[in-house]
């Protein structure tokens, strides 16, 4: 029976691979649900913050915080890229990096320098090969990113904006459309786009303690941090969704492969039996 043993071992090895991909699929599915919950939980904070900033801005038209002023001449652009730490997530990271490269080329075409801030190990591995400077990075945030791990990284970019090293700041992360679709999304963080007066339904004269400038500074910093946090959480949800889909198709492919191998195995086995039978019959006839 030539080859049947090899086919059998091949089938066992594909089966054990399929077990792993199936387990990964299920783990990713449950983690995705939890990441989506966290995405929802982060929303009210950012919205309330945005409204408070809108109120402050409207009440103090004479004070312009540097984070709110549009700079006429944009010579340097900062980009915060949020990527995953681990692979096996389909084309999620590659699509994101492509988007970042487009953005970089667009600004470089306008004569601007681009500096990066990288979150996630995959992004670091990709962008460190380019000549573009990386101002800050953080990796291994895990499946539950915390604001506390992002503060330092974001602060580097905010400080760079304050002292004029960059004139505009973007955030690029994967956007969760649905389980099957994740697309890269570019968001302008700085200067902050404030709410229009028409979007604020009511207005009060606040008492400010200590003063409006300090409060606005504290609020803007936290607002941007919360945006980056939201991006990081959304990216985790995308990673899990992409991994779930990738692992599902891997399991399906393994199933197909097993079926094909089983057919080949059966054929080989049958051929061997037929051959043996005909030999016996042939032998009996000769006697």
């Amino acid at each position, binding site marked *: 029976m030539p080859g049947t043993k090899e086919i059998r071992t091949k089938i066992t090895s594909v089966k054990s691979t399929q077990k792993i991909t199936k387990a990964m699929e299920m783990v990713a599915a449950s983690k995705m649900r939890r990441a989506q919950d*966290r995405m929802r*939980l*982060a929303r*009210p*904070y*950012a919205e*309330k*913050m945005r409204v*408070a900033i809108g*109120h*402050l801005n409207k009440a103090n038209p004479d004070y312009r915080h540097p984070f709110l002023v549009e700079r006429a001449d944009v010579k340097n652009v900062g980009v915060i890229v949020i990527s995953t730490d681990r692979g096996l997530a389909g084309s999620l990271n590659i699509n994101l990096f492509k988007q970042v490269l487009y953005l970089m080329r667009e600004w470089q075409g306008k004569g601007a320098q681009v500096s990066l*801030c*990288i979150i996630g190990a995959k992004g*670091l*591995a990709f962008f*460190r*090969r380019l000549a573009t*400077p*990386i*101002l*800050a*990075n*953080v*990796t291994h945030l895990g499946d539950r990113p*915390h*604001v*506390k791990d992002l*503060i*330092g*990284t974001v*602060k*580097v970019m905010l*400080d760079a904006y304050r002292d004029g090293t960059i004139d505009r700041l973007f955030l690029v992360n994967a956007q969760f459309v649905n389980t099957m679709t994740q697309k890269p999304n570019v968001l302008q963080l700085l200067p902050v786009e404030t709410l229009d007066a028409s979007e604020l339904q*009511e207005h*009060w*004269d*606040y*008492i*400010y*303690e*200590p003063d409006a400038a*300090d*409060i606005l500074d*504290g*609020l803007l910093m*936290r607002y941007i*941090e*919360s945006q980056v*946090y*939201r991006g990081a959480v959304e990216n985790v949800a995308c990673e899990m969704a992409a991994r779930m889909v990738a692992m599902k198709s891997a399991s399906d492919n393994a199933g197909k492969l097993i079926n094909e191998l089983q057919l080949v195995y059966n054929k080989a086995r049958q051929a061997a039996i037929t051959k043996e039978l005909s030999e016996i019959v042939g032998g009996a006839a000769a006697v």
Partner: protein
Amino acid sequence: MAEASTIHVDIVSAEGEIFSGPVAMVFAPAIMGELGIAPRHAPLLTLLKAGEVRVRMPDGQEQSFFVGGGALEVQPKRVTVLADTALRARDIDEAAALAAKQRAEEALRDRAGAIEQAEALAELARAAAQLKMIERLRKIRG
């Protein structure tokens, strides 16, 4: 009358909602000193320092929550506490920023090493593929 004696409070952080509901009074550690907010307080916006936010429920019970800092917004009918989940201070933030910068510098310092490693890996993959091909050819001929 129940509406006049309570005020709606939302305590939210970037990572989730901590508390939401009507209360009789809120105490918060504002940057200028401890504040007590009763219903019909004037609109106010202030920053908070690390400490305890206490809410007194209409039935007199108290609940307290730790905040690492944040902001407090008082509107005529609701109070919003935007709480920080992490302890904030200028030097802590500064240290975190410095660490982030250093990580980036380190990653760039062995940039050359990484390229060499990537090239070596690619070469290894090529060699492995060639070996496989040779083996297959041998099998066909043999």
